[in-house]
């Protein structure tokens, strides 16, 4: 149990710390203290785990997450993860201390520390993952947090560009990795790391081995900045130095090599692995070192040097001998230690001297002797000087490079590539030290350089002392941990190796000496030329991965996208709708083309009266389509006619519920459209262009499309109607409606009981639509030319002025005088009808929808019959409250069934005896129907009133203008 708690703590603590850091007030001390405590806790917990993993053991904690999908949260620590965890927490601790002094008091410390801690959590997650899916998730998280950290100074364009570039490249790699993981999971049958590692033979023999390998390598190479994906790392140097030191030298970029070491037992050991991985590694090693020598920016030099060292580690992993793996792990640790300290030293120089340009710096030895000493020792470790940690792992690399593998060109060139890269590495290390700390003292620095505070130097000192300890006493310091890590990767066949400084005079030692001397000479020869030349290496200066990337990005996201849109897209609604209709038509035709012909059976009756009904209906529909452009009012009436015929059909064919609802909706829709007509432009004259040949051709084409749609749907409808029904569902509802739903109107019982949840969704949609309309119309400005008073009113006023016995406005007031009285008297009658329709709904045609719309019509008539202002003085309708109340009632009815231990919206039916009235059906569905009723009233009234008010608004605006 303690073990499990420890593992959970390791995973969760940094994230908790991150949230806490984000919430703390911005104070550098508090933030650093918090972050430091998290790191110390992580370090202590990790150390406490050592006995478990020491002899090849694995600490595991399985949490079932989605067991049915084989997804588990598996926290797993073995020797390799343990070593990386120590690095992560240890360097994290030092970086937090350093960052405390690096940040100026004005900068937001909370943001930096929160993201740093979040990154630490994500990186820890990669190390702790015992499940590949989980690993990918944390992998992508590190990309995101790295993005946030590189972009910390988000006002600088370089920071934004660098952050975006790093995110695009590494997230692309993450997606490849995800694809690889899914393939691996499909082949192995599990995402569990231990099972995958044990299935190496299956994976290597599988035909998909090469695609998987390439996808995994894309993930690892982008993260670990291997050529040709290296360019994001130098651009990431726009980040604050603590970030560069932590993420871009010690941890994040090591995730790639960690992954390669991790999966090497499962995917390694093949010719493809050797060729691709070591070739990429060697190329990166060489190019990185070459580029590094020609940088003028301190951090640029270190970034390319990091690229180069990552290449070295990758090359070692590619060789894939047990000794090479040991060397790879060892060099990963060494590099993290000396490179983190070098970044911190570079940050101190930048901080105290105000520039990182090596051409301007010089002679800082006098101003900051202690920092200089530390930086010199660390650079020596980077160059591979004996008695320092870099020396030992580099020797191991030389020894491995000199080995013979498959005698290919790659194999034979390895030794030379290693030697040349080592010479370059010595040269740039010397350049780093020489140009900053020696030579003529700089005179035009932005700041007067001096030693930084002791605590800012302390982290550098700790790391440099570690370099020395590992370098001088490897057997005591690093050997046990390294052995544990190697044991966890290689299993019992860890080879014999000795971590000694002196192995006698052999080839690696000769190579080291040659590299040191060669590097010194190279720097002497090139020093002046480098300083005077522009930044970047000769010959390859023009060929920048960064520019290729930018060009590609612009092409894909802008130029190609625009071209594709021009080619395939359209902004025209008509074209879009035409495509939509054609696709629907095509899909239906494709599905039904080869279908077995339906055999019409059963009685087909012919009813002359029904035929007359639809002769009228069809005439209405066609004329409406014909006249909709120039004679809107006529078209509107004709649509009403078609609607009435639909309504008649419903009555005819035994669907009274539909007929009632259709009729009521018809009324409301017509009124709505009538209200809308006022806001459309006048159109009486014929448009000349409409008579053109092109317009005729367009209409002809649309006519063909429309006819095809009509024919198709008529054919389907006829075919279905003349075949025997499949009434399974219908019978079930008919049998259960009364017994279980307590109502004889089956349609209503389906709506409010069996499919109550659907209806709940539907009324929610209705409410949303009403609110949307309300909101849209509040912002809307009616068209200027339509805002004037209608012609009819003007004419009425004119006649008033002419006649002596009348005042202006009299005719308007008397207009519709008789109907308005009738309407006023009908108000209570319609309300009663509405309640009647509602109450009988469960047993007879009617129900919440129909009743709601009826009540809305009652309100609507008041608006139609008299002056809007008068109506609103007498009647206060609050449609928004109706909508809210309706939703609440419906939801509470549903929730009520929870109280009795039933699922949402389970209904209960009973007859209740009322005095005078008699037995009344009472079902909980009735309550739900009340909700429907209220909402329908509210929504319909809200929509109508919102539109009706537009003319009032225009009028008010005009009045206020007159007054003003």
């Amino acid at each position, binding site marked *: 149990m303690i073990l499990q708690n420890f593992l959970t703590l390791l995973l969760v603590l940094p994230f908790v710390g991150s949230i806490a850091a984000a919430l703390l007030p911005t104070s550098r001390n508090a933030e650093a203290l918090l972050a430091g405590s998290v790191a110390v806790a992580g370090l202590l917990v990790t150390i406490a785990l050592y006995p478990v993993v020491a002899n090849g053991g694995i600490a595991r904690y399985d949490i079932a997450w989605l067991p049915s999908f084989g997804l588990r949260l598996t926290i797993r620590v073995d020797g390799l993860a343990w070593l990386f965890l120590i690095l992560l927490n240890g360097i994290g601790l030092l970086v937090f201390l350093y960052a405390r002094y690096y940040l100026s008091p004005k900068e937001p410390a909370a943001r930096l520390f929160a993201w740093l801690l979040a990154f630490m959590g994500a990186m820890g997650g990669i190390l702790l993952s015992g499940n590949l899916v989980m690993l990918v998730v944390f992998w992508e998280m590190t990309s995101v947090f790295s993005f946030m950290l590189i972009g910390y100074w988000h006002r600088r364009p370089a920071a934004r560009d660098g952050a975006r570039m790093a995110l695009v490249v590494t997230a692309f790699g993450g997606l490849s990795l995800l694809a690889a993981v899914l393939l691996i999971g499909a082949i192995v049958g599990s995402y569990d790391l231990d099972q995958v590692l044990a299935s190496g033979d299956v994976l290597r023999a599988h035909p998909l081995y090469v695609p998987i390998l390439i996808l995994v390598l894309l993930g690892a190479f982008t993260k670990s900045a291997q050529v040709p994906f290296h360019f994001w790392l130098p651009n990431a140097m726009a980040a604050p130095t603590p970030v560069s030191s932590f993420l871009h030298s010690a941890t994040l970029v090591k995730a790639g090599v960690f992954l390669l070491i991790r999966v090497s037992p499962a995917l390694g050991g093949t010719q493809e692995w050797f060729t691709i991985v070591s070739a990429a590694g060697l190329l990166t090693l060489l190019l990185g070192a070459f580029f590094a020598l020609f940088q003028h920016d301190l951090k640029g030099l270190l970034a390319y040097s990091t690229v180069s060292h990552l290449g070295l580690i990758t090359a070692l992993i590619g060789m894939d001998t047990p000794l090479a793996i040991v060397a790879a792990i060892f060099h990963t640790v060494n590099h993290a230690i000396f490179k983190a300290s070098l970044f911190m030293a570079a940050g101190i120089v930048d901080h105290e001297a105000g520039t990182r340009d090596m051409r301007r710096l010089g002679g800082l030895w006098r101003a900051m002797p202690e920092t200089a000493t530390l930086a010199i020792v660390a650079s020596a470790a980077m160059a591979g000087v004996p008695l320092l940690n870099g020396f030992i792992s580099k020797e191991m690399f030389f020894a491995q490079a000199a080995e013979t593998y498959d005698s290919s060109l790659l194999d034979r060139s390895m030794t030379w590539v290693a030697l040349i890269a080592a010479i370059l590495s010595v040269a740039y290390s010397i350049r780093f030290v020489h140009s900053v700390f020696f030579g003529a003292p700089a005179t035009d620095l932005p700041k007067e350089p001096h030693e930084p505070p002791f605590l800012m130097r302390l982290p550098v000192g700790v790391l440099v002392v570690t370099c020395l300890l590992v370098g001088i006493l490897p057997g005591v310091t690093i050997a046990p941990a390294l052995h544990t890590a190697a044991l966890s990767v290689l299993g019992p066949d860890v080879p014999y190796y000795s971590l000694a400084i002196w192995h006698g005079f052999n080839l690696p030692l000769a190579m080291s000496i040659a590299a040191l001397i060669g590097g010194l000479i190279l720097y002497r020869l090139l020093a002046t030329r480098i300083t005077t030349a522009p930044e970047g290496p000769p010959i390859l200066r023009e060929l920048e991965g960064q520019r290729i990337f930018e060009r590609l990005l612009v092409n894909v996201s802008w130029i190609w996208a625009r071209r594709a849109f021009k080619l395939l897209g359209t902004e025209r609604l*008509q074209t879009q709708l035409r495509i939509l209709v054609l696709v629907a038509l095509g899909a239906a035709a494709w599905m039904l083309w080869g279908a077995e012909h339906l055999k019409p059976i059963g009685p087909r009756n012919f009813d002359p009266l029904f035929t007359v009904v639809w002769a009228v209906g069809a005439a209405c529909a066609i004329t409406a389509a014909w006249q*909709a452009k120039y004679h809107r009012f006529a*078209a509107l009436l004709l649509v009403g006619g078609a*609607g009435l015929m639909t309504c008649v059909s419903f009555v005819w064919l035994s669907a009274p519920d539909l007929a009632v609802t259709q009729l009521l909706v018809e009324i409301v829709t017509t009124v709505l459209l009538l209200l809308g007509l006022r806001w*459309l432009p006048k159109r009486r004259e014929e448009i000349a262009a409409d008579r053109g040949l092109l317009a005729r051709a367009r209409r002809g084409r649309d006519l063909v499309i429309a006819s095809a749609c009509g024919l198709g749907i008529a*054919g389907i409808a006829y075919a279905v109607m003349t075949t025997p*029904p499949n009434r399974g569902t219908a019978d079930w509802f008919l049998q259960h409606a009364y017994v279980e739903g307590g109502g004889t109107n089956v349609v209503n019982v389906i709506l409010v009981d069996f499919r109550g949840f659907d209806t709940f969704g539907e009324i929610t949609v209705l409410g949303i639509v009403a609110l949307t309309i309300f909101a849209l119309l509040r912002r809307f400005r009616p068209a200027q030319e339509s805002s004037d008073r209608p012609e009819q009113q003007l004419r009425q006023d004119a006649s008033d002025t002419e006649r002596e016995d009348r005042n202006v406005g009299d005719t308007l007031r008397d207009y519709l005088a008789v109907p308005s009285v009738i309407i006023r008297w009908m108000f209570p009658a319609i309300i009663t009808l509405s309640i009647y329709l509602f109450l009988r709904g469960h047993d007879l045609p009617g129900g919440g929808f129909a009743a709601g719309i009826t009540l809305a019509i009652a309100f609507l008539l008041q608006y139609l019959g008299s002056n809007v202002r008068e109506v609103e003085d007498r009647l206060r309708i609050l449609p928004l409250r109706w909508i809210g109340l309706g939703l609440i009632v419906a939801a509470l009815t549903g929730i009520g069934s929870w109280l009795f231990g039933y699922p949402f919206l389970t209904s209960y039916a009973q007859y209740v005896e009322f005095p005078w009235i008699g037995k009344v059906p009472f079902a909980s569905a009735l309550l739900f129907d009340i909700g429907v009723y209220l909402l329908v009233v509210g929504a319909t009234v809200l929509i109508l009133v919102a539109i009706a008010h537009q003319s009032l608004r225009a009028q008010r605006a005009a009045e206020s203008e007159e007054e003003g």
Partner: protein
Amino acid sequence: MEAVLAIAIGILVASGVWLLLRPRTFQVIIGLALLSYGVNLFIFAMGRPRTGAPPVLDKAGIVDTSLYADPVPQALVLTAIVISFATTALFLVVMIALRGLTGTDHVDGKEPDR
């Protein structure tokens, strides 16, 4: 009767689709109304509607369910009627707002360049 209903559905849908492809907002809104009649009748037709089939149950109990009208398409259409009302209303308001904003009732918000 089946043939008449099928033809009616066809004509409603054809008129609706034709209007849907027209350039003026009002034409499209009328088209949507016609199309929704057609589609509602089509869904309704899937239940093989008949004349004189009782839609409401007898409280005495069920004798033969096949005598009754199919309630499932009816329930679907009832929902569809209400939703198409909402769509029409929303479209109408967008139409009005578009006209106020752009000064034209063309569906693209600008007169086509001819």
